[in-house]
């Protein structure tokens, strides 16, 4: 009897340690970035585990830097525009793919899935030419255009999955009421798709916000950059020393909104990820 109890306690402790390990593994790096962001000067070079004093000078210097704030605006603009474009094209396509049985449907789905697998670098030179031709080089609009390559396929993919789950009778009721496919989509389905659209939009937003390769290649000057590029290229006073304090403050600034979004919408995100099994 005693041994059984001991075994139970051991199992419980083991589980608790496992949980603590998982939490430490997932949360610690971000936590440590926050700790670092509140340090300045030589304090930075002493390893500490806690925030001893809230020193906002790193934040002040990052925000005081006009180009970083500009990058945030660029990122916001690019991400929102990308989401809106992906939604606009994705919703109509998802209706066709999810609700209409037609020949060539699975071929279209294959194309969509195929494009989502494209290595970005494989279209880099071709896209560069297109962007040059459209005179969009070093312009955030170039990013809106190019981000569609990865946001549109997975938007179509996830929205199609959700569109399929809507009851068939609802559409038939609309048909009997005399609604055209366009009316059915806009008056009946889209109002019911808000949760799915929020999920998909959030995933597209995060993907666009985090994108690096295109942003690095298609922009040139500080004032046109997005946040990831700005952080990657952030340099300090001297060429050889990275301004770690500023870097961590900038990292925290751009990540906190995402983390908050994720915590608030975690259920939606999980359902979206599993619905499409797409890359995050």
């Amino acid at each position, binding site marked *: 009897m005693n041994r059984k109890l001991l075994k139970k306690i051991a199992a419980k402790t083991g589980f608790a340690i496992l*949980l603590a390990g998982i939490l430490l593994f997932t949360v610690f790096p971000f936590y440590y*970035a926050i700790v670092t962001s509140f340090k300045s000067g030589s304090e930075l070079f002493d390893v500490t585990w806690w925030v001893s004093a809230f020193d906002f000078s790193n934040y002040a210097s990052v925000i005081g830097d006009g180009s970083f704030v500009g990058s945030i605006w660029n990122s916001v603009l690019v991400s929102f525009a990308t989401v809106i474009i992906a939604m606009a094209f994705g919703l109509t396509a998802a209706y066709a793919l999810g609700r209409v049985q037609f020949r060539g449907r699975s071929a279209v789905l294959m194309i969509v899935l195929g494009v989502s697998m494209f290595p970005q670098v*494989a*279209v880099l030179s071709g896209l560069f030419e297109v962007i040059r031709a459209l005179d969009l080089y070093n312009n955030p609009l170039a990013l809106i255009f190019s981000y569609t390559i990865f946001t549109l396929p997975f938007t179509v993919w996830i929205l199609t999955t959700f569109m399929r789950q809507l009851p068939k009778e609802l559409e038939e009721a609309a048909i009997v009421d005399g609604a055209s496919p366009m009316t059915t*989509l806009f008056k009946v389905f889209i109002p019911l798709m808000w949760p799915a659209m929020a999920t998909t939009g959030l995933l597209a937003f995060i993907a666009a916000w985090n994108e690096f390769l295109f942003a690095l290649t298609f922009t040139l000057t500080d004032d046109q950059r997005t946040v990831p590029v700005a952080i990657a290229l952030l340099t300090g006073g001297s060429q050889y020393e990275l301004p770690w304090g500023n*870097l961590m403050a900038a990292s925290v600034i751009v990540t906190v909104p*995402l983390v908050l979004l994720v915590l608030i919408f975690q259920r939606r995100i999980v359902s979206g990820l599993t619905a499409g099994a797409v890359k995050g």
Partner: protein
Amino acid sequence: MPAKRQASRVRRQRLRAAWLFLIPMLVVLAAVAGWPLMRTIWFSFTDASFANISEYGLVGFENYLVYDNGAWYGVLADPTWWNAVWNTLFFTVVSVGMETVLGLIIALTLNAQFRGRGWVRAATLIPWAVPTIVSAKMWGWMLHDQFGIINEMLMGLGLIAEPLNWTANADLSMWAVIMVDVWKTTPFMALLTLAALQMLPSDCYEAAKVDGIHPVRVFFKVTLPLILPALMVAIIFRVLDALRVFDVIYVLTSNSADTMSMSVYARQQLVEFQDVGYGSAASTVLFLIIALLTISYLYLGRKQIGGEA
């Protein structure tokens, strides 16, 4: 059986509407993916340069492989390229392998009933939400050779005698990259695995429990085979993603040859060396590798994708 009639007018209207709805999306995809891809392949047969991309001459397969003056030239003869291929494969196999195992462990833990499960699950999503660049920088700082907390920790535990230069040391830098990638993408694997676990029927577990089978045996005999299809989908997505890795490596170790992946190599040729022809050839080879894998995956998983409208 009577002769089959043509689809009715209503049905034809519906089909027309479906294509009208699809065409904008297909046009956009063609503009951002199809056309650029074709141009990339085209450029791979030219000597175009990044600075002036519109003036170029055709050079045939020279960018891929050419025999000149007793030596082979071109991407396929470049040891740096093959090094990048090897690095990418090593990175893919090791990081996806570790992510799968860790993801499985986290998923199994989260599948248990305990208080605060929602919070832990939310916490595991944090790395997924952190931009890759930011996570590379964060880890870059933690792995700093002089002031990094990882070195401090390992020294405190007595595992190492002196600080390691994680990102610059040829033996360690790939492992540093893998560490960051594992941290960033394990949550994705864990969540997909968890979703698969939660769809398992509970009755076979009860049966196993009644029969007194050891939990480890139950895992390998019951759980794993049942979640394998879902796990495979997640693994394939991750593999295809890992093969085109760029951000982490570029930010953490820059263009160092020790960690250079195929994407980093191609971009270096394209942008830094301004050699669009050569870089496009490398990109095309990368595309072919991924396309081959994707096609074989789509072919194998064909039945799953069609679904029902």
